[in-house]
């Protein structure tokens, strides 16, 4: 039995449970089981808090610190221009926040504050501020954010009621008390100040459900409920600008917000959550059987991203992993969990199985276009088999 982090209703038992190890969003393994609970009161899904959560984000969580230029390709325009994820986030942020001239903008849980940096590049009149629960990112803020506009661990008391707007990109899914997190930002905003939150939409991105440090998996229903509980009125809920994610804009309310619940939205969220849990349960069971089939034998894993890493977490102790195969040249010639990452054409001749770590909706089409991966003696193992 565990209380829902959004509406506090007790959730009797997990909808999905699998033993250790658990995979984090930064592709590390934690020696904890994965348990997903789904709340039928508000449609929220949540996982157990990871051990020493403060320490993990203070010193263990190292997103983008290893590379200056680390960024994901979001899309490519017809003229060949590559759109990177942070550029896209910055553009959505500028459009959704509609900041007034000279507005004070806080990036809450900023990490390197790359998105904020790009917002400021396009809007030099904005007065940027950053807050994070780790001091590790401070060097990335030097030179473009005034020292008094930087804070780590605790937001200064004098920041209360200071900001015209705050944004927090892909942070709230990590926090153990999301309503407290929202309330905390509310205190820092001016009356009627604007909040922009972004987070994974697990219904469109089912892989998110098993990420160990994503302890919250919001649905539209639970997101609206959490914002209301934190003292905000939702003005925009955007599910299309960034596929697989919610971008929500909410305005600080000066009166208590009624925590209304749309029963249809809650039901849909619960059904989708259970469906995703069923998929992962079946996949985990299938992998367990295949790991037994190929115990001590050589196998490769296609994909060094989330799905491939998750497969490794389930089979890595049983089979002899020869390599991760990945089309992304930025990942090749490196190691992942101690195994080489190579181009798919370089699959070892003696690998007896290839575990396909791709989004199951696209996996068969992608692998089908690679004739060199279809050969006698190489069994393809699918997540949704």
């Amino acid at each position: 039995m565990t209380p829902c982090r959004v509406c506090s209703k007790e959730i009797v038992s997990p909808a999905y449970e699998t033993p250790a190890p658990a995979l984090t969003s930064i592709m590390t393994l934690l020696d904890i089981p994965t348990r997903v609970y789904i709340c039928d009161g508000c449609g929220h899904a949540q996982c157990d808090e990871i051990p020493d959560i403060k320490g993990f984000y203070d010193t263990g969580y190292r997103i983008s610190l290893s590379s200056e230029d680390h960024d994901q390709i979001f899309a490519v325009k017809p003229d060949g221009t590559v759109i990177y994820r942070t550029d896209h986030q910055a553009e959505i942020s500028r459009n959704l926040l509609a900041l007034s001239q000279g507005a004070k903008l806080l990036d809450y849980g900023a990490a390197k504050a790359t998105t904020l940096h790009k917002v400021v590049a396009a809007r030099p009149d904005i007065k940027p501020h950053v807050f994070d629960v780790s001091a590790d990112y401070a060097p990335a803020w030097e030179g473009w954010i005034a020292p008094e506009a930087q804070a780590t661990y605790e937001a200064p008391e004098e920041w209360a009621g200071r900001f015209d707007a705050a944004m927090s990109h892909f942070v709230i899914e990590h926090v153990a008390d999301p309503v407290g997190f929202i309330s905390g930002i509310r205190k820092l905003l001016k009356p009627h100040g604007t909040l922009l939150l972004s987070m994974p939409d697990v219904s469109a991105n089912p892989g998110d459900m098993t990420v160990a440090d994503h302890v919250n998996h919001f649905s539209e229903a639970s997101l609206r409920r959490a914002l209301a509980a934190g003292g905000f009125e939702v003005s925009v809920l955007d599910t299309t600008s960034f596929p697989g994610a919610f971008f929500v804009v909410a305005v600080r309310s000066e009166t208590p917000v009624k925590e209304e619940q749309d029963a249809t939205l809650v039901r849909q969220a619960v059904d989708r959550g259970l469906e995703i849990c069923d998929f992962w349960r079946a996949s985990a069971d299938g992998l367990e059987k295949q790991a037994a089939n190929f115990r001590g034998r050589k196998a490769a894993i296609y994909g060094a991203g989330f799905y491939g890493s998750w497969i490794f977490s389930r089979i890595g102790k049983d089979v002899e992993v020869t390599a991760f195969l990945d089309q992304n040249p930025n990942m090749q010639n490196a190691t992942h969990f101690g195994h080489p990452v190579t181009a798919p054409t370089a699959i070892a001749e003696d690998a007896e199985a290839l575990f396909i770590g791709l989004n199951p909706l696209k996996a068969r089409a992608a692998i089908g276009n690679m004739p060199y991966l279809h050969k006698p003696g190489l069994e393809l193992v699918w997540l949704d088999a």
Partner: protein
Amino acid sequence: MTAVVITQPMLFPWPGFFEQLMLADCYIYLDDTQFSKGSFTNRIQLLRGNDRCWMTIPLAGKGSFQMISELTAAGEDWKASHRSLLRQSLLGAPYIDDALAIFDSVYSHSSLLELLIASIEEPARYLGIGANRTIEKTSEMGVEGTSWQRVLDIVLKVSGTRYLTGHGAANYLDHAAFERAGVQVEYMNYSRTPWPQPVGTFTPYVSVLDLIARMGPEARSCLIPATVAWQDFLKEETVTS
């Protein structure tokens, strides 16, 4: 628009390759690159009962560190055993004689490179593909260099404006450089259209001779070429942090 395909010579490749060939205005054999063990240069899969097997040309010195144009076969015995293997694989197929006739014509070449090139050209002729194609060999084009820059220079040398490639290229091409040079890169989206095979689950990854033996003059109807622009091919979709 001139569409260019550049690939290594291959032994009777799978039908998907011929879909690529159907789109090519200019086809270039990359014969002056180093032979890669485990590639399709000297081997192809055939059906064998419920399973598949390799038909592999044994290479002198195993082909180690040799250019494809310099490869030689080890002995001659393999020609007879390949014919027997192929005949066994295609037994009962209505157009087996067409496939074996192509095989015999191709295997009459004594030069291994010419044999490999013929193993693409002869099936292509049977399938009515690309009678007007320009065909070149990189060893005779005088284009130096390495990696994607050489590929681009080869495409430009034949005035190419589209470069059609398989998925193995994604890891080394500088797509933006192709774009700047006026060449659109497109990745094959193979149809993998099924044709009747005698037993087991259908597989498209066997030699084109299997398709010809079972479909005869109708074989071409199983070839439905399509491509994906590189811009769509390279999109990532992760939202995990």
